[in-house]
């Protein structure tokens, strides 16, 4: 594979541009997805009947269908009711909505794992439900959720590669372009694969460190 390193040197800059797009999409989706996911998780635990039903329905719908179908639906389907979106925006929306549904379940689990007695104690002191949730439940739940939740950012980074299907010029798309122009498909995709590998490894390590930094003592009882 002597040609591989020459190849790499030539085309790495192009792939790098694609990586930037990937990372931009990813960070946007993570931000939106986490906030929405937290909101959905809270809705499932504390919401009234209609809120609960709506969020549960949404989560079931998203988790029961493939991401690719969701992206195609958003990009090709929405224009039919008048919503025209650029590929990047469409992909970001679909990815954000998708990760939110999965994160919601992680958050819900963590919130429910906090003993109800602590909430009762908080209410007994006179705190409102919102105060109890924000000062007692969330600080603990957000710490507990990290091990499981850490899967999401990594998955999202990998699944962002699907966006090339609707023309987003991210890493995968660039690799494809290079492949078509040089016919050296194997090299192009191997290079892309290695970049993804590096990115996910760095991400996984960082999340692991975050988990260590943020944990308090072992949960009482």
């Amino acid at each position: 594979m002597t040609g591989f390193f020459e190849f790499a040197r030539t085309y790495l800059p192009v792939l790098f541009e694609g990586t930037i797009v990937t990372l931009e999409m990813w960070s946007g989706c993570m931000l939106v997805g986490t906030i929405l996911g937290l909101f959905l998780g809270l809705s499932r635990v504390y919401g009234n009947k209609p809120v609960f039903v709506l969020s549960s329905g949404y989560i079931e719908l998203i988790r029961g269908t493939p991401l690719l179908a969701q992206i195609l639906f958003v990009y090709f389907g929405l224009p039919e009711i008048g919503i025209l979106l650029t590929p990047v925006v469409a992909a970001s929306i679909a990815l954000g909505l998708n990760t939110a549904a999965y994160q919601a379940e992680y958050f819900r689990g963590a919130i429910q794992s906090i003993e109800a007695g602590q909430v009762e104690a908080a209410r007994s002191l006179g705190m409102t439900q919102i105060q109890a949730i924000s000062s007692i439940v969330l600080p603990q739940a957000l710490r507990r959720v990290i091990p499981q939740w850490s899967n999401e950012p990594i998955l999202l980074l990998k699944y962002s590669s699907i966006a090339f299907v609707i023309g987003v010029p991210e890493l995968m798309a660039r690799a494809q372009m290079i492949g078509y122009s040089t016919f050296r498909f194997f090299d192009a995709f191997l290079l892309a694969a290695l970049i993804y590998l590096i990115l996910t490894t760095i991400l996984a390590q960082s999340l692991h460190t975050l988990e260590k930094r943020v944990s308090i003592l072992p949960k009482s009882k």
Partner: protein
Amino acid sequence: MSLLKVDDVYKAYGDLLVLKGVSFQMEKGDIKVIIGPSGTGKSTLLRCLNGLTSPDKGKIWIDGIEVTDPKTNINKIRPDIGFVFQNFNLFAHLTALDNVSIGLVKVKGMKKSEARVLAMEELHRVGLEEKAGSYPAEMSGGQQQRVSIARALAMNPKLILFDEPTSALDPELIGEVLKVMIDLAKGGMTMLVVSHEIGFCRAVADEILFLDEGKIIEKGHPSELLTNPSYQRTKEFLNKIIKLYGEERDKA
């Protein structure tokens, strides 16, 4: 006007009627203990008093304000009612000091620094100043329960409800909690305690209420009720307790 007035309270869980018309009153400084077989609604009764549960029928007043009125803002009354749980329910992510002070900060709007000073005083009162920086997971059950009492005290309540405060504790840790409770009683706090600690009753209780099958069967001063109960059921229950718990621990 009584500090606490309970009027004809009924509560059912599904088909099971747990409270069948309970009524009693408490004045400032009263120490009353509720005893009775498990599952007869003692905890339920206590939880109705601060609104954690709502009775199906009947009314409850704390210092003239009706707790059971849906229009009442329950969050305004709760600071006046201290509640000590069987399982302590300390906030796991906070130190003892923060556990005690958080109510002052969030509910009474105090500055954190002021709240901490008050919290330290309460921790001192229960004998745990040196544990101020410890987390619940680092403390024994008895220490956790004392912190939870300090937490209730910090709010400067008009009365404190104790829901089987020592039932979840190892035997050798019960004494330290009872001592705190007795000191509180002697200091004039109004206390309603659900417990089977007869020693505590003898030491400081003004009245014992025997709750069985959802009703108050008998009430009386410890000196009378414990030695010479009027009803058969009371007698049977007291015999059972004494058999189970051996000699009453006299912690006076």
